[in-house]
């Protein structure tokens, strides 16, 4: 169902009324800061990298500029598919039947973008923090595994709660629990109706509060109870939150509350978990002992080891134990991989390897399916022990911290250089969202479409610098290993725009071979995905300006022209990649395209593959 223009205008008018009356908050506030205008500019140009940087830096992606343009409208209008996708993934608001929402859709430059907007559950884009909120809320209902550490009783009802959530969300509980962290039961007077308490708890747990409260009289009691609670718990906004009625206002309130809840959790996370993380020598890491009753209510310890070499050594020790009967000497454990890098001096590794131990809460770890299965199982980790269990996690402390930060706060604020490590850790722990995020960071910050030629043009000889930004082979292989389609696409694009740098490398040949091998039971005529993708992007790179017009004929004409021109005196020399002089930029592009395509064909012949 599509609304008519007049209806949308009427809605816009009503919205403005409501905003000026203070009943609603503006979804798209005017933003005149420099950061925002840089961001808008990036959206206009389609500069993924800057966009990602600005989003990470916390610019308001829903704001508007002096001309009432929002970043989404700009990106959509200027036809930057990748940017639109990034914005949508970052939770930009785009509601149908609103003025700004319809503009984004109406202005979409291509059908592809339009379909993307529509497919993105356009009408009810959710708050990107929703998964976190939903998880916290689900803790109230979850019974297996047991994660609650505080039983709140009132009248006949008992609520099983989590001290860390309460401490993070309510100053009142924070104070009380600091004084007596070992408390595990809490009685409330019977004077407050249990429905009020239920509502307040739902509020603290970021749950959607069911607002209809039984009959009129009863409702009054409940609301009075809520009012009382909101004073006791020192959360003034609770009452207002619960009594809100307007639908949009409720949504805004809820979004705001979820944001606040996240911030509170984040603050608490920094002040407690990160503050109490322990740096120890790896050899002693297993001996870290925490009592069950600790000041930050942690119920499990996670350990990450600093140096991977040492990690290997240690594991080797375990292996040795297990395989003693096989009487295998440690030396027989020889890695076979092509990049065997064992040459790093063992003495250095043994000197002082460090580990970091993070206190954590099972309740939040459950967001990872790995931990969920672990704590639900019958294995050691799920047994209760005298001291908190120390669970080693197979990644670096830095990455573990990122993982924990994501689990507690939904924040994914990490630099490109450890993105692949995060990707693997997320894959190991089954945290799908973090995987997506890591892939997103790699593919946006990785500068996929900046052609090496342009860069060369700018940086001259220094163009070779790209090889240092990222190892595209690693990225593509990581994408395969962790089954992230997007990285393969990114890799293909990346290579296509710099094909001249890779086409002759031995390792590129290897990669193509691997790609071919990925198709099970390959037929003679099957395509190689990687090559197909590269060819596609290659044509994008060079044919962008030609649309789909008959390039061959154009080129023939151009060549004829060139022949004529050759007889005349050349005015300006344009060189192709292999240094030949050509007529103009079209001719240059065409020549380059043909040259690279030929090279790919040669490569395939070399591999005895047909694609």
């Amino acid at each position, binding site marked *: 169902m599509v609304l008519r223009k007049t209806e949308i205008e009427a809605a816009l008018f009503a919205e403005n009324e409501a905003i000026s009356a203070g009943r609603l908050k503006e979804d798209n506030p005017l933003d005149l800061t420099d950061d925002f205008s840089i961001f808008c500019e990036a959206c206009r140009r389609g500069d993924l990298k800057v966009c990602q940087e600005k989003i990470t830096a916390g610019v308001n992606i829903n704001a508007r500029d002096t001309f009432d343009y929002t970043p989404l409208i700009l990106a959509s209008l200027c036809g930057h598919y990748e940017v639109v996708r990034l914005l949508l993934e970052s939770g930009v608001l785009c509601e149908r039947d609103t003025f700004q929402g319809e503009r984004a859709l109406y202005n979409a430059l291509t059908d592809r973008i339009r379909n993307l907007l529509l497919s993105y559950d356009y009408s009810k884009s959710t708050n990107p923090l929703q998964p976190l909120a939903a998880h916290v809320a689900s803790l109230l209902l979850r019974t297996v595994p047991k994660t609650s550490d505080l039983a709140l009783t009132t009248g006949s009802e008992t609520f099983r709660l989590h001290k860390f959530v309460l401490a993070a969300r309510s100053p009142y509980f924070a104070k009380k629990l600091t004084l007596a962290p070992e408390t595990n039961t809490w009685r409330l007077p019977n004077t407050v109706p249990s429905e009020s308490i239920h509502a307040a708890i739902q509020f603290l747990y970021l749950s959607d509060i069911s607002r209809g409260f039984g009959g009129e009289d009863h409702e009054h009691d409940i609301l009075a109870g809520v009012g009382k609670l909101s004073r006791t718990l020192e959360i003034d906004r609770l009452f207002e939150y619960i009594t809100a009625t307007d639908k949009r206002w409720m949504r805004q309130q809820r979004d705001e509350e979820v944001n606040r809840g996240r911030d509170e959790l984040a603050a608490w996370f920094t002040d407690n978990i990160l503050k109490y993380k322990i740096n120890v020598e790896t050899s002693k890491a297993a001996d870290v002992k925490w009592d069950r009753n600790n000041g930050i209510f942690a119920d499990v310890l996670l350990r990450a080891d600093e140096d*991977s070499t040492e990690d290997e050594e240690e594991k080797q020790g375990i292996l040795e134990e297990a395989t003693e009967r096989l009487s295998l000497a440690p030396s027989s454990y020889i890695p076979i*991989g092509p990049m065997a890098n064992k040459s790093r001096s063992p003495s250095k590794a043994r000197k002082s390897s460090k580990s970091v131990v993070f206190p954590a809460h099972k309740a939040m770890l459950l967001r990872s399916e790995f931990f969920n299965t672990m704590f639900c199982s019958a294995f050691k*980790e799920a047994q209760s022990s005298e001291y908190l269990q120390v669970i080693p996690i197979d990644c670096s402390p830095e990455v573990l911290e990122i993982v924990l930060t994501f689990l507690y706060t939904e924040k994914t604020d990490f630099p490109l250089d450890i993105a692949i490590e995060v990707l693997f850790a997320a894959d190991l722990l089954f945290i799908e969202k973090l995987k997506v995020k890591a892939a997103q960071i790699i593919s946006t910050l990785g500068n996929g479409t900046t052609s090496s030629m342009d860069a060369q043009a700018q940086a001259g000889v220094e163009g070779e610098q790209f090889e240092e930004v*990222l190892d595209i082979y690693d990225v593509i292989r990581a994408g395969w*290993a962790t089954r992230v389609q997007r990285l393969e696409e990114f890799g293909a694009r990346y290579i296509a725009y710099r094909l001249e740098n890779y086409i002759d490398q031995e390792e590129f040949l290897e990669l193509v071979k691997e790609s071919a091998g990925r198709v099970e039971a390959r037929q003679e005529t099957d395509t190689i995905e990687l090559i197909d993708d590269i060819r596609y992007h290659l044509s994008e790179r060079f044919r962008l300006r030609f649309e789909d017009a008959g390039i061959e004929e154009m080129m023939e004409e151009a060549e004829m022209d060139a022949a004529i021109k050759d007889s005349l005196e050349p005015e300006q020399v344009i060189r192709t990649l292999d240094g030949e002089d050509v007529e103009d930029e079209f001719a240059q592009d065409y020549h380059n395209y043909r040259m690279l395509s030929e090279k790919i064909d040669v490569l395939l012949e070399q591999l005895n593959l047909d694609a």
Partner: protein
Amino acid sequence: MAAMRRQAQKIRAPRRGIDQESIDFGITWKNLEVAFKEILTKNASKLSYEELYRHAYRIVLKKKGQELYIAVTTFIREWLEQNVCGKIRKLLVPSLLTTLADGPTGASVNERRTAGDRFLHGLKDAWADHQVCMAMMADVLMYLDRVYGADMRNPSVYHTCMDLFRDHVLLADSGSQESSLKSVLLILNAIVLEQIQMERSGDVINKAEIKNCINMLEALYQSGSETEDQRLYITSFEPDFLEASKMFYQHEGEQLMREGNAETYSEKVTKRIKEEQERCRSTLSESTTHKIEEVVELELIANRIRDVIEMESGVRFMIDNERLVPLGLLYDLSARVDPKKVELTKAVQKRIIDLGNEVNKAVIEASQPPPPGAPAVPNQQTAAALKWVEDILSLKDKFDAIWLESFRLDQAMQTSLTRSFADFINSSTFSRGSEYISLFIDDNMKKGIKDKTEEEVDQVLDKAITLLRYVQDKDLFELYYKKHLSKRLLMNKSISIDVEKQMISRMKIELGNNFTSKLEAMFKDIAVSKELSTGFKEYVASRGDPDLSRVDLKIDVLTSGTWPLSQDSSEEENATRPKVIYPPQVARVKQDFQNFYQTKHTGRELTWHPDKGTADLIIRFKNGQGSKSIKEVNMPTYSMIILLLFQDLPEDKSLSFADIQAMTNIPPADLKRQLQSLAVASKTRILKKVPMSREVVESDEFFFNEGFRSDYRRLKVGVIAANNRAETERERRDTEKKNDASRIHLIEAAIVRIMKQRQTLKHEQLLVETVQQLAARFKPDVPMIKSRIENLIEREYLERVEGSSPAAYKYLA
């Protein structure tokens, strides 16, 4: 952003442990294997999930997923073969095998049950352990499943291990020589079936144990494809179970038939069905409920219901003895196999018709004129009619109760019952239904509803309507009803006009406007007449003629055609019939009224019916003293005319029969009747007859009886044979003849209507349509229709279509 500076941006390679280095599959697998053994021996609590998961994770990441998958399945298979199978085989004690093979010889029920129980228990334990352990292993191998399994579209480790259990435990060789007990699965089936058999014969068995094993069969699949109908339960156990059940119930059916008691039969079958349902719920699977029901239904109901219904203790016995509960069971059973319940319906219908015909027969016998010599019973016909109605109604009540209690208010059943009632009420051997129903209403209107509350009256009306519904010849009923109603109205016999009107409105609902319009017109005539009477009285008073006021006139002006008056049908007779000579004072009033009426409705002709009216006379007798000698006498108009002849006659003078006839012009038959009541009936002997005899003959002489005595001041002179009663044979023939005459018109009209619409039509079709059109009013008989068609052809309304076979007709415009 600092981190984004070019130099610092160099992406870090993944950790060596993950990517660069290979791991030794053999060693890592050995670790896992040791751990899996611990799991299988229930020592898992010391194992670290993280460590095991990491091992599996690395193997998969190193693209060794397939090796791991194979290693795991091989390991589990060996485990099952070496450990689990042995345990199960130990439970297969030879005695168990032999009893299963040879049937229950030797070992007692108890022994067999215990041995079976032990086997089921052992198998269930093995299964439960397997499930728990495999779930734990699946947890550890989660990454394998997700990554390798998804890539290769392999079934998950858990499912594969479940299949292994099926192949290497359930389908393992049992060591038995019998081919029907070759595998553990077959033995399981046999044991479960044996236990069910025990339960059917009344023993108590361990249902929970069986249920557990059934659950196992439900969780496993026959082959790789995990569709619902591939579950082992469906492919292996269920067919055996249904087959065994079929045999059992065949046998049981024979045995029950031998016992030959329909009541116990239906009870037993109902119980069996309930048992099977309960068994499916508690012991087997809900999905079998429907199938086993079908088996029981086929063996115990569909194949035998007919015999059961016809048993000596079958439906007839149950109806006659009001065995509503077993009849209800029988109904339920029939309904299970046949939505139309043909057999049961047939039996019930037959019984209704038999009982109905008995009622009819009884009435016909009762209404026979008494044998000569026996004392005549007064109103014999009416009594018979009332009894008939009562009998029918009680029969109806009886079957209503059966319908309500036993037939669960089944609509189709109700229709069949109604049809059966209609069948015997309209049966060709009994043609008095319409008349009797009308009589029943008449009786109630005149006497029955006196002192009854409104509800009771309602009930009576309901009953009448119920019966009326069954009647097919509605026109005949209308004729009778009109006759009876007119008498009630004219003679003021109705107790309540309100109730009369209620009756009419009910008939209107039941039979339509058409049917009641004439009846309603009768009521209207009565109401109009009342107005006329008062209007006339006022008219007379306004003329101020004191002489006229001596005779009061109450008049009923009846629209001709609406009322069933004898003159109606024979106009010519009416014309030739001599006019009755009224006494002068009456004739004047009559003339006056005629004039008065003409002023109101010009052009209408009034025909006077002195035979229908009554008159009140005040007569002074000479004997006796004072007021005692003055009597108020109500009498028919004819009597009044006769008596007035004696008013001025000297006491010793007499009038002969011929004189009276000459002076009054009353038809001789009527006159004879009148004189009989005036001079013969003992209570109202106002005239003396010479000679005194019971019969009035033409030569009789009549005197005024001055010495008349009576204890009452008010008297009523009855009219002999004017009483309402059932018709005599002759009268009924008259009525029927009249009815047939009117039917002729209706049939012809219907035929013409149909032909006009269709133009040409085949003979058969014309018959069918005609019957259909007239069904609401009566059931025409075919010869009559045929003769009407012939008649219409003669009158050139229709013509035969030349050379058509079968015959067809064409409408001639």
